[in-house]
């Protein structure tokens, strides 16, 4: 990559975000027309932006973070009543991860007896869904390794052009950082929430395997907690979403990998006067309405 003026870098970033002033637009467009380095830089900025922003923004549309942290941490319940290990196992179970019979029974007993735990597990699930799923989808579309190499190449090329002994001007410093800083700044709320999620995990992990009043000898954890939350290898089918048209209802009967029971998704016409439309006399399916 040839030398790219720091001013142009900054203007390209504004251009990519649709925030460039009308007065500066001709200068950027001229650079993009004549300079391959400018086009390459615009492509990198756009790819990075689209890779993460779009799915995360979609996630933020779906999740309300108001009070979520309090729910997860269970402000209203004494900490001694909480068992982080069982809450992580509950999340794993909800995702179809097979548990041992002993662990399954412990999770069921725990959730049935601790209201705060049910809220916490639901809150952790929301946090996970808010970030993991959309970013997984982004990861499917983007070759992050290649993108990282391109960014590295671009930055190194600019370094080489300027010389490592050259003292940076404030403008150069700003331009160098805008690739990262503008992106982080634009998505500050997202990363703040990510930090919240990380804090929850960080607070909970040290409690795992710590003897408590309820569990004088803490039981063994089936697998490392971060693996359970974020990076487990899927062994059972998972239903991510079900959408149905007006006039239908839907429900999901959960599976049980240990018992060789597969999940059942129901999409069924609503009944009229107790009859299924088009399938009269058939018994109503079992399942949990969504």
């Amino acid at each position: 990559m040839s030398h790219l003026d720091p001013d142009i870098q900054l203007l390209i970033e504004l251009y990519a975000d649709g925030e460039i002033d009308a007065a500066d637009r001709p200068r950027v467009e001229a650079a993009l027309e004549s300079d391959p380095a400018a086009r390459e830089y615009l492509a990198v900025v756009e790819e990075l932006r689209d890779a993460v922003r779009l799915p995360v923004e979609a996630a933020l549309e779906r999740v309300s973070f108001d009070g979520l942290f309090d729910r997860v941490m269970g402000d209203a319940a004494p900490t001694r009543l909480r068992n982080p290990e069982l809450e992580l196992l509950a999340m794993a179970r909800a995702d179809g991860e097979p548990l041992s019979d002993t662990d399954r029974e412990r999770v069921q007993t725990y959730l049935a007896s601790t209201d705060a735990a049910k809220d916490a597990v639901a809150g952790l699930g929301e946090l996970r869904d808010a970030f993991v799923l959309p970013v997984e989808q982004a990861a499917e579309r983007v070759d992050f390794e290649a993108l990282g190499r391109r960014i590295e190449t671009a930055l190194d090329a600019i370094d080489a052009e300027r010389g490592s002994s050259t003292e940076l001007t404030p403008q150069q410093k700003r331009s160098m950082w805008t690739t990262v800083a503008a992106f982080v700044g634009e998505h500050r709320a997202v990363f703040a929430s990510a930090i919240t999620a990380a804090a929850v995990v960080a607070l909970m992990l040290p409690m795992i395997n710590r003897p408590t009043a309820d569990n004088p000898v803490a039981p063994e954890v089936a697998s490392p907690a971060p693996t359970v939350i974020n990076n487990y290898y899927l062994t059972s089918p998972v239903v991510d979403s079900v959408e149905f048209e007006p006039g239908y209802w839907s429900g999901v009967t959960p599976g049980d990998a240990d018992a060789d029971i597969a999940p059942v998704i129901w999409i069924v016409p609503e009944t009229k006067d107790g009859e299924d439309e088009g399938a009269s006399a058939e018994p109503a399916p079992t399942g949990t309405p969504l």
Partner: protein
Amino acid sequence: MMNRISQLALVALSALLLFAGASLATPRAASAQQVNVTVTVIVASNSGSGVDASLSAHARRLQQQFSQFDSFSQSTRRSLALAPGQSGSVSLPGARPATILLEGQRNGTILLQVQVPGGSTDIRLPPGGTIFLAGTPVTGGTAILMIQT
């Protein structure tokens, strides 16, 4: 100084990207592979005819999981070889066909979107996984799609 800034910038970028999860290191080429999805269309009813011989391998599971029906017959069985973004369809007797779209793969998990009359669902299946999608009224009863990878 510049190198340090570049390195810091890369560290910051890496942190952002790693936030996306360990899946980021998955080679893109892996998601371009075709996968086979087998869809068996079963018509369930209470006609008293029991379970089709063609479904004998699944009789116990069907009778256990769909105990509201007493009869199961196989209507169609299709094996679809799908690449990411490709879809295939399976006919349902007397109804619009079901459509199965391969959305992608990750860590060996297959992401599918299945559309049937009245709705659609996004599911993730591990290799060898089975899931049922049921409820569509069809000729002779209610359709049960057995989707296997």
